């Protein structure tokens, strides 16, 4: 009987120590009040030296958002709509008033992306490809920020990330389409967008209306 009690204490201590490093919890109050069903992904602002960063990050954003249960507007048509209205740079486009975006697209929310790192840096012995993106989800009906986050991915993370998803992403057809120069950045943009926008994740976007369990706030794992 006494031995069982001490076992329980040990187990509890181990679990508590394991849960020590939980990240700060996001306040989902606004998000849960807004419950956006449609997300307009605006062209990403790019602060990296690679001009292909914006289209790469933009084109990879649709999948995690759609799989999270949101309707995502077709990027090619969104791009065309802005072009036809004389707007071509992401910086200008991201300055448009939320009410105007709501009027033109009918979207509940808009996603503002900012690429701070995209590309390969070459050191003496090694090279590293990294893609870092920050995001902000704004309710177009109220102008409120519903959520913000950031994510990064890098070739320096080690072999556990090299197989599986990344291997599948760049098949022969895709390689032919995108060309070899931007391939590394293009691949990691997919991983970064997935980490940034995929749900359910701790402090990530909530699952949307088309998912099996919409609006569930992820609980910390013990």
């Amino acid at each position, binding site marked *: 009987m006494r031995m069982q009690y001490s076992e329980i204490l040990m187990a509890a201590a181990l679990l508590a120590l394991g849960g020590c490093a939980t990240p700060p919890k996001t306040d989902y109050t606004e998000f849960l009040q807004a419950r956006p069903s449609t997300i307009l992904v605006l062209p990403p602002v790019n602060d990296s030296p690679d001009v292909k960063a914006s289209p790469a990050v933009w*084109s990879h954003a649709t999948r995690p958002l759609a799989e999270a249960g949101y309707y995502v507007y077709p990027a090619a048509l969104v791009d065309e709509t802005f072009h036809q209205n004389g707007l071509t740079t992401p910086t200008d486009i991201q300055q448009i008033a939320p009410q105007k975006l709501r009027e033109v697209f009918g979207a509940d929310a808009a996603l503002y992306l900012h690429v701070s790192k995209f590309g390969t840096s070459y050191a003496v012995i090694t090279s590293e490809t990294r893609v870092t993106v920050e995001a902000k989800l704004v309710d177009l009906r109220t102008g409120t920020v519903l959520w913000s986050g950031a994510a990064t991915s890098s070739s320096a993370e080690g072999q556990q990330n090299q197989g599986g998803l990344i291997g599948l992403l760049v098949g022969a057809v895709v390689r032919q389409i995108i060309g070899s120069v931007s391939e590394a950045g293009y691949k990691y943009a997919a991983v970064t967008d997935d980490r940034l926008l995929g749900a359910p994740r701790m402090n990530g976007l909530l699952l949307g209306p088309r998912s099996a369990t919409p609006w569930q706030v992820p609980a910390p794992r013990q």
Partner: protein
Amino acid sequence: MDMDATPRYLSRLALRCATPTLLLGLAACATAPRPLYTWEDFPAQQYVVLVHEGSSTVEDQTRALEAQAEKARATSAALPPGFRAHLGYLYLQAGNPGRARELLLAEKVAFPESGPYMDRLVAKLDAPPAPVSSPSR
């Protein structure tokens, strides 16, 4: 406190702690949700259009996406949000506004929440060509 045969005690404890954790971990893998949509090369096709580089022709892109749509029909898989509209956009580029219009309306049927934007795009297709002097929206 009486703790006899310490190594055996610790290994039993480890097993008691590890087993529920391991089972939960495996359960999480086993119940990973099935994707809602079939993606194939759609993200890459979107990239091709957005990058404005002309590395593949509209005809090639259309053919690839039509093949994906056919496969989805055959397997009853769901095409992603924006897929039909994107294909419609390609047909418009190729000079086939009739097919473009059908696909925009199909997008609205598949995803009614896209209605306001699809209606706007269809209205632009249906509108008589604007006189040169009128200001753009």
